[in-house]
């Protein structure tokens, strides 16, 4: 049993859905379930540039599903105001790389409001954004700013790795009493399908999960890198090397216990993410392992990450930036050799 608790019982109505459909269904059901939920952002009304909110304006009305002017600080700041006065805003930032105009609102207010009002005012808001590369997007469309967001006190950061998890985690994020960033790997939007129950369900935030069990080494990853690590693990298994994979899913709050338990079991760790290495979330994972489990280690903790350069807007070579199974396996060989 490698799935975390919280998954609903198998349903007769489970279908194979893409990430886009699963996320759209979570939004649809949240709108139906709670009249305080509002969905807005740039081009959200017509379904969004990835068609995640397709049909939702027709179904729930343009009062609750609406376009905003093209202004990201405005989108986040407006959402904070809606939340302060009792709504449950779900904002879409068209690409995570377009989030930066809103950083003042995020750093100064989004995660601070509960704290500075000593609980009098809260911001139960979700900000969704597609992130990451691998699909030949134009410049600035492939950023992975999760470490920037994870560094903001008072906001949660959730990054699902498949359609089933995405629906359940987004439902939980919308029901959560605090602000949640929900980053969706563009690479996974249509490339993977999974069985997704038709009924609404929520998966617990703040829990990492072991998605593959193994004894040889632990791969710690999240979002679009889980698929890459699975591929690496399958290749390694053909050589008789069984890798364990920990999908963090929620960067904040960080479930250190699940990571540390796996480290104690395998003694060898590779952390994998698409964002650049320096100051990336992998540094936090590695530091935490060093603080709490260094005596369990048989080898140095290695990181496989984007290079320390901007994400290259050059389609022909972008696959050299984004970690792939080959680079993960090279690091695995290194930790196994130690």
């Amino acid at each position, binding site marked *: 049993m490698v799935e975390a608790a919280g998954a609903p019982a198998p349903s007769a109505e489970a279908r194979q859905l893409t990430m886009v459909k699963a996320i759209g269904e979570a939004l649809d059901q949240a709108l139906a379930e709670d009249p305080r939920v509002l969905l807005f952002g740039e081009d959200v009304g017509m379904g969004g540039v990835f068609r995640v909110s397709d049909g939702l304006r027709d179904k729930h009305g343009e009062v609750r599903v609406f376009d905003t002017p093209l202004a990201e600080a405005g989108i986040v700041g*407006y959402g904070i105001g809606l939340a302060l*006065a009792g709504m449950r805003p779900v904002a879409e930032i068209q690409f995570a790389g377009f989030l930066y105009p809103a950083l003042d609102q995020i750093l*100064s207010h989004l*995660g601070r409001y509960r704290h500075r009002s*000593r*609980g009098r005012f*809260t911001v139960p808001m979700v900000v969704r954004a597609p992130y990451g590369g691998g699909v030949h997007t134009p410049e600035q469309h492939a950023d992975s700013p999760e470490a920037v967001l994870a560094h903001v006190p008072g906001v949660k950061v959730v990054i699902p790795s498949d359609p089933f998890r995405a629906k359940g985690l987004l439902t939980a994020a919308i029901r959560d009493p605090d602000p949640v960033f929900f980053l969706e790997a563009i690479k996974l939007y249509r490339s993977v399908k999974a069985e997704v129950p038709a009924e609404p369900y929520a998966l617990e935030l703040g829990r990492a999960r072991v998605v593959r069990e193994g004894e040889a080494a632990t791969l710690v990853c999240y979002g679009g890198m889980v698929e890459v690590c699975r591929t690496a693990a399958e290749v390694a298994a053909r050589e008789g090397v069984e890798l364990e994979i920990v999908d963090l899913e929620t960067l904040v709050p960080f479930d250190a216990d699940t990571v540390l338990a796996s480290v104690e079991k395998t003694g060898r760790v590779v952390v994998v993410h698409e964002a650049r290495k320096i100051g990336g979330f992998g540094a936090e994972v590695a530091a935490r392992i060093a603080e709490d489990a260094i005596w369990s280690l048989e080898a140095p903790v290695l990181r496989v990450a984007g290079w320390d350069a901007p994400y290259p807007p050059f389609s022909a070579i972008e696959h050299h930036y984004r970690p792939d199974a080959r680079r993960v396996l090279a690091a695995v060989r290194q930790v196994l050799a130690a």
Partner: protein
Amino acid sequence: MEPLCYIAEDGSIGGERPGDELPFGPDELAHGYRAIVRARIFDERAMTLQRQGKLGVYPPYRGQEAAQVGAVLALGRNDWLVPTYRDTGAAITHGLPLAQAILYWRADPAGWRFPEGLRLLPFYIPIATQLLHAVGVASAGRHLGEDWVALTFIGDGGSSEGDFHEALNFAAVFDAPMVLVAENNGWAISVPTQKQMRNPRIAERAAGYGIPGVAVDGNDLAAVWHVTRQAVDRARAGGGPTLVEAVTYRVGPHTSSDDPSRYRPAADARPWEARDPVVRLRLALTSMGAWDEEREAALVAEVKEEFQAAVAEADAAPEPRPEEMMEQVFASMTPDARHAWEVLKHG
């Protein structure tokens, strides 16, 4: 666009525009006067407390009392106020207890949870970010079937921020029941208005958003109150947002840590002493036969007593606990936060 004025510097009524009739009776004006005196005395006393080491850094609003109090008098209890750090006078007029205001500026956590039911957001330190929140709060009322209006303030300095533009545009596009009062006090800390903007008439920017913009004499409580009341009524009736510019002057320093003599000559402030909003209103009320020295003495004594009681109440607040900083980060404490809480509590 000339600022609207009803009560001239010498207290004479009639204003700068012929035919302008005072839209308030003596009793209403006396009510406004009580509020403005209360705001003035709070500000003076707060600066004194600060100099005694009993407040942290404090941003005084001397000279801007009519702009703040006049605007807030236009609100009902159901309406929201979204203040900047300069707007303590507005906040206490909207219902923030004085003891809480003192504790807030003492940076004591006991002062940071505003009372339930009081529709007042905490003071905003970052510039202009609050404007977007006011638009969201205003729109939320429409979704919830409430008829509230959100009133927010900005300074002339803050009108340079991008959020000023985004908020006015969002408010206009969404027809938000929001009133933005720009307290044009002439200074962004040390930078005068003429170095901040080519067109010094902030209210004229409203045209760019397709919303009404009105300039008022920000030292005339009657003018500010009247114009804001019209804007609030229009917003409540579905007429959308209004930009009000209250032309005033920051007589004192930016904060208790600032020394204006470093960047502006004393002569710059002098004409504004003659335009003092409190004196002006008292002269007007006196000439109407609605105020006298006896009432003045009673009011001042009453407010000073209220302030003293508030100081005593604030002084009785429990000592802040170090572990309080780990509380209210999230609704429920994460394991890491719990660990830090224990460390802070038990060392």
